[in-house]
């Protein structure tokens, strides 16, 4: 890539509930990232935000509501409805046009104010067929998990193992929402929500307001000693109806291949130093690891048991604690990216990996059972 785009700084809230007013939080985080970057609002070229109106905020006036709070007053910008990793690539592309030197990317979601996740996800269905059958995200994930167990012999213990690993990692993350040391028995004994899914295998609903400053190469180098570069991106969206898809042969391999090709990655397990994947349901982390090429099909459970995905393993997955520790819905892709950014910069505090981190993968998913996937690669 001749014109590189660098991530300069990031600022974000913790996932825990606060009594703060949403716009104050958006303002505080936007201001914080500008201050850290050493720029003012006047220096911001374009603003791209990600949010979900009615369903993850109860407001339908979109970015017009939080635009001025997000340091975007009178700015040339736009909004992505839904997953925030899409907002990131949108901002990268705007810089690559050559029309903007900097971009501010925002992901906003105040989950603590919302109804339960599945009251919202029920409306991701069509009214003619799947909504009449009561479908929601957890039902879709439960159907997917049972297939994963039936077809590839994934065990309940392996699924619970993902929760134990990620919540242990989250203990070192000041931004995590769920901070609790748990053991296998506790996860296995948690109540059945939608069999075979148990409550501790399902992500919470969290707050998550995050802002990132991006800049074109020469400016990024001026603004920081440690720019982190955008290397590649890929996405793919599978068919809409759950029943049209093989739930274990989804579109993540395609999204990953597009990102790997762009970043020149041939052997992901060797070349990626850390992966932050979006696992709203524990078993999905293992399935996504297979899809990302970290192991063979059906070997996600063994990969976990080998310790390879632990913080001290050869391919650490979710050192932040992942989405199981913090699920600010639309913002969760940007949070994955932020963790990769901090790990590459050596600024991940207590959870900093005990190795040189040059290349990070950030993954996000939305829709039912991984209908939509996006993968971004960043590096030093």
């Amino acid at each position: 890539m001749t014109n590189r785009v660098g991530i300069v700084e990031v600022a974000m809230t913790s996932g825990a509930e606060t009594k703060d007013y949403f716009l104050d939080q958006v303002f505080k985080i936007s201001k914080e990232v500008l201050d850290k970057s050493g720029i003012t609002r006047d220096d911001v070229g374009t603003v791209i935000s990600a949010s979900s109106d009615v369903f993850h905020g109860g407001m339908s006036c979109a970015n017009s509501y939080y635009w001025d709070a997000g340091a975007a007053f009178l700015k040339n910008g736009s909004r992505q409805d839904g997953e925030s990793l899409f907002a990131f690539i949108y901002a990268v592309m705007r810089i690559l046009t050559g029309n903007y030197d900097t971009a501010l990317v925002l992901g906003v979601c105040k989950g603590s104010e919302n109804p339960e996740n599945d009251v919202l996800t029920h409306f991701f269905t069509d009214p003619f067929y799947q909504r009449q059958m009561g479908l929601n995200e957890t039902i879709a994930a439960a159907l997917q998990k049972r297939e994963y167990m039936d077809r590839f012999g994934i065990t309940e213990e392996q699924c619970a193992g993902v929760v134990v690993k990620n919540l242990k990692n989250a203990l070192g993350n000041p931004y995590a929402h769920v901070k609790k040391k748990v053991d296998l028995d506790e996860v296995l004994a948690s109540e059945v929500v939608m069999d075979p899914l148990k409550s501790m295998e399902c992500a919470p609903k969290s707050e998550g307001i995050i802002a990132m400053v991006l800049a074109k190469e020469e400016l990024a180098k001026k603004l920081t000693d440690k720019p982190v570069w955008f290397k590649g991106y890929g996405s793919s969206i599978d068919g809409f109806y759950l029943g049209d898809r093989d739930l274990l042969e989804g579109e993540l391999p395609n999204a990953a291949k597009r990102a790997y090709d762009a970043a020149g990655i041939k052997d992901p397990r060797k070349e990626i130093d850390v992966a932050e994947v979006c696992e709203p349901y524990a078993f999905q982390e293992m399935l996504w690891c297979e899809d990302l090429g970290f192991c063979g099909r059906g070997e996600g459970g063994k990969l976990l048991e080998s310790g390879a995905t632990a913080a001290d393993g050869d391919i650490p997955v979710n050192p932040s604690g992942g989405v199981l520790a913090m699920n600010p819905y639309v913002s969760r892709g940007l949070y994955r990216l932020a963790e990769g950014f901090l790990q590459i910069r050596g600024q991940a505090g207590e959870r900093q990996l005990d190795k040189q981190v040059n290349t990070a993968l950030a993954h996000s998913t939305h829709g039912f059972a991984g209908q939509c996937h996006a993968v971004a690669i960043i590096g030093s």
Partner: protein
Amino acid sequence: MKKDFYTVSNVIRLPHKYAAGPTFTRFYNGLEEGKIYGTSCPSCKKTFVPARSFCPGCCANLDEWVEVSQEGEVVSWTYTDREFFGMPGKPPVVLALIRLDGTDCDFLHLIGGIDQDDLEKVKSSIKRGTRVRARWNDEKKGHMLDIKCFEPVS
């Protein structure tokens, strides 16, 4: 739940009326007659159910209508004894993906005709591969739940 700081509560009610279009209308008319209709793709030969107007894979028009089998195999299922928003009926429920014979996608519907008092009983009567058949409600109104459920074929 009351919180220990000042909050403003708000309930949003949004009544919509969605146009069903000719394909879903014909599918619903089929349900009223106790029939399940799909459409087949002239290009990949796949049969989709519920019927739809285009093939997602081939980007082709689907205008070949077929009445599909009311019997098939369970592909995956989930059970809950809790109430949830939007649930069809009252708990407990078993929702399943069912591959109807001769079709090329899974049909999302309820499983019935089995003891659903507790999970172990459900597990003993329903598995991947279990053969099931549609059971209809007497009163039909052009809705997915005109099919009451799918019951194991003994």
